[in-house]
């Protein structure tokens, strides 16, 4: 029987391209929608009836945001978290993965199993909270950095990559008088730049988007990250006004009007860094996804 769907088939190409266009539209349009609402007249933005281009171009909300010290503070804090957590993640992943690549390590199998178990089984939110509290990390930025700087998944990724480096290189280095740290620093790490870039990018994106840990462990806004600040703006007080005392209702009504367009501008502001850097690191994301799926 003739197989009409074969490589080079024009119909198949048309169908695939059409499907990709639809998928692209579904992915890109919501972002475009938020962008044009943030650049539209505030009253029209509140109706949410702007679909293609901004209505009466207006950058009032961006102008207000730029003057918003709280937002810039949250931005700086988030950059701090991203940088420190990423550096620590690279250190912990490398230092844990390297010994596990040594076949002569006593109890290597048991250590690997010990690392894998918490990857699948977690204590849950309350035990985690109690642990953070008892360690004295509550209301401290370390509550967001320390638990996030260690990942079994990343250790496995780095270990898998280290395993592709020929064993003979390590043996040669030993013969030449290098110790383990020198071999790691001068041979393995320079060769593992691609996988370290993958781990770094994953970590940066993960830290940039996180907010729940901050909600639990950081009750004061001094060290709260940008996404928690964004959540605060987006999830405005939604209590029905007619159940509140009149003076509270009046205050809430005023806040809802001014928050309407600001929310869209804040979304763009918070997503912009990741949107801008993503194209440059895209190849690392793809490489990271493929790692571990192909052997040899």
């Amino acid at each position: 029987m003739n197989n009409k769907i074969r490589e080079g088939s024009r119909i198949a190409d048309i169908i695939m391209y059409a499907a990709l266009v639809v998928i692209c539209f579904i992915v890109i349009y919501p972002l475009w929608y938020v962008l044009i609402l943030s650049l539209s007249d505030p009253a029209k933005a509140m109706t949410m009836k702007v679909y293609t281009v901004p209505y009466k171009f207006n950058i009032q909300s961006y102008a207000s945001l730029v003057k918003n010290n709280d937002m810039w503070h949250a931005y700086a804090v988030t950059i701090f978290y991203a940088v420190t957590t990423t550096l620590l993640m690279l250190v912990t992943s490398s230092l844990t993965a390297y010994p596990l690549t040594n076949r002569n390590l006593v109890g290597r199998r048991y250590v690997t199993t010990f690392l894998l178990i918490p990857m699948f089984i977690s204590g849950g939110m309350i035990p985690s909270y109690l642990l953070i509290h008892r360690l004295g990390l509550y209301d401290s930025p370390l509550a967001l950095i320390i638990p996030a700087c260690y990942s079994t998944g990343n250790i496995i990724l780095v270990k898998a990559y280290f395993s592709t480096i020929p064993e003979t290189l390590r043996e040669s280095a030993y013969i030449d008088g290098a110790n383990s740290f020198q071999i790691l620093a001068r041979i393995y790490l320079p060769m593992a730049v691609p996988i370290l870039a993958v781990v770094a990018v994953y970590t940066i994106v993960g830290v940039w988007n996180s907010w729940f840990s901050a909600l639990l462990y950081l009750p004061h806004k001094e060290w709260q990250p940008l996404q928690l600040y964004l959540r605060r703006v987006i999830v405005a007080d939604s209590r029905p006004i007619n159940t509140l005392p009149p003076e509270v209702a009046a205050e809430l009504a005023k806040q809802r009007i001014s928050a309407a367009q600001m929310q869209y501008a804040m979304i763009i502001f918070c997503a912009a860094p990741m949107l801008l850097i993503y194209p440059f690191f895209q190849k690392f994301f793809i490489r990271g996804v493929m790692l571990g799926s192909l052997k040899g």
Partner: protein
Amino acid sequence: MKRKLLSSILALCLTLSLLAGAVSFAAAETATEPLTLKMLGVDSKAEVDGVPNYLSYWIEEDNPMWHKFYNDLLERGLKIEPDLIMGDQYQTTIAAQIAAGLSTDYLKISPLDTVTRLSMGLAGDFLAINDILEYSDGTAKEWFENGIGKICIQRQSLEDGKLYWINSHSSSVYQGQPASTGLGTLIRYDWLEKLGLPIPTTLDEFVETLRAFQEQDVNGDGLNDEAYRIDTNFIGIPQWFGIGTDMYYIDPITKTVMTPWKHEQIQPYIQFIKSLYDEGLGYLNLESTSTGTMMADNKLAGYPSWMGDFWSKWSFVVPEGEPAADTVGFMIQAVDGVEPLLAGDGQVKLAVSDAFAFTKQCDPKAAAIFLDYICTPEYSLFSLQGIEGVTFVYEEDGSLTRIREGHPLFNDMAKTMAGATLWNTDLVPLLRPDDDQENSAVRAYKGLASDKQIEVMASFYFYPYIINNAPDGDFAIATQAETDRLEELSTDLKTYTSELMTDLILGNRSFDKWDSYIADMERLGLNDMLEIYQARYERTLR
């Protein structure tokens, strides 16, 4: 002899110096440090000229309002240490801190549900207010035993007879008489004026008015889209039919616990709402078109709200050149022989949702000092109006005027007068005895609300048939067993009745099967619920 005299004088000097040392030591002991009260509350937010203003900013800047509050307490021997949490995080924070062990002396417990409050109270995690009052200088004791605070003891004391938290509570007066703020139905007064129509006084006039808004395209957008917002939560039009505000309520005429679903006018009410919806004169508050969108599109013909609601008009976007949106409250007697009710907060109001407690590690003397201060008329005036000469002045006739923009004394501090609400209900319970609506509303709203709106609002202050818009405040607190039973049945009942209301209005269910719907509600526990609330009401009357 001389030697003996010298020895005696020396001995006397030594004795006197010893005594002096002992006295000064005792004096040093009594000149103690002030007691400390660690307070956990919400870092509440107000907007001033579109810029967010937080209570924590006031503390950092030593704002005059905060400065007075702090120093008044310090003079009484109490140093407060506030720990403020952002509003959206507060519930998570106190839940987590309760799990890990509370380290504060006083906190807002509003986000805790009744079950948690009850169990914490009975377990001794909170100090009993009754025990704290033993250390009172008399002010707080008088307030809670004989004054307006008595409502807290009557309605919020637990099974052991003790009160473990304080709710916000207040009473209102107007022209020297007990008054109640009304919550009802508002209609677009600017549209009535534009079309030369009177405020409706009958159901037929109300429908004709809504039709006229559409037929004459009063908002000028070329579409017949002007509509009333139908509230399925029993606020506004249901009261025209004599129906209360929630799944349960105390009927002000019969003084019995009722449910709207067994009221004889419930079917006529729903049928009336359905007719509005079918004709396109009303839209449901559950639909995708939100009230905010309808306001922004200038399509909203009316909605349920406080009679003095002037703030919502800022949400209406009217065409250029048109007068600003304006609303006015009104009431209709829908059925002959059935007195319409008015939803409101009652002359004496207890806000069950706003609660504050002292924890077991709190020094009861510190708690007593705090209560003695906030139960004074001076504090009540300060929390409501601010500081004389800074945020308000007394006129020659003794009336009170807030210093607003345009007043000769207007200043930046007066601008943040909204700050009076910054800590009320978020750090300190709202306690306002004899809150004179003349100052709080009638005069305060001048320039913000229209004269007609203020006039109508004031006309409802003495309406005799008030139904509490938050009826839980009318009942004594539930026992543990009652709370458990209510927890079991309330969710299913609310879900069922909410869906039933929507389906009836949309025409998805028929009124012919009404008896089966009531049977379903009874199967879900409606009668049990009413029995519980009746028992709670009877305890309130004792």
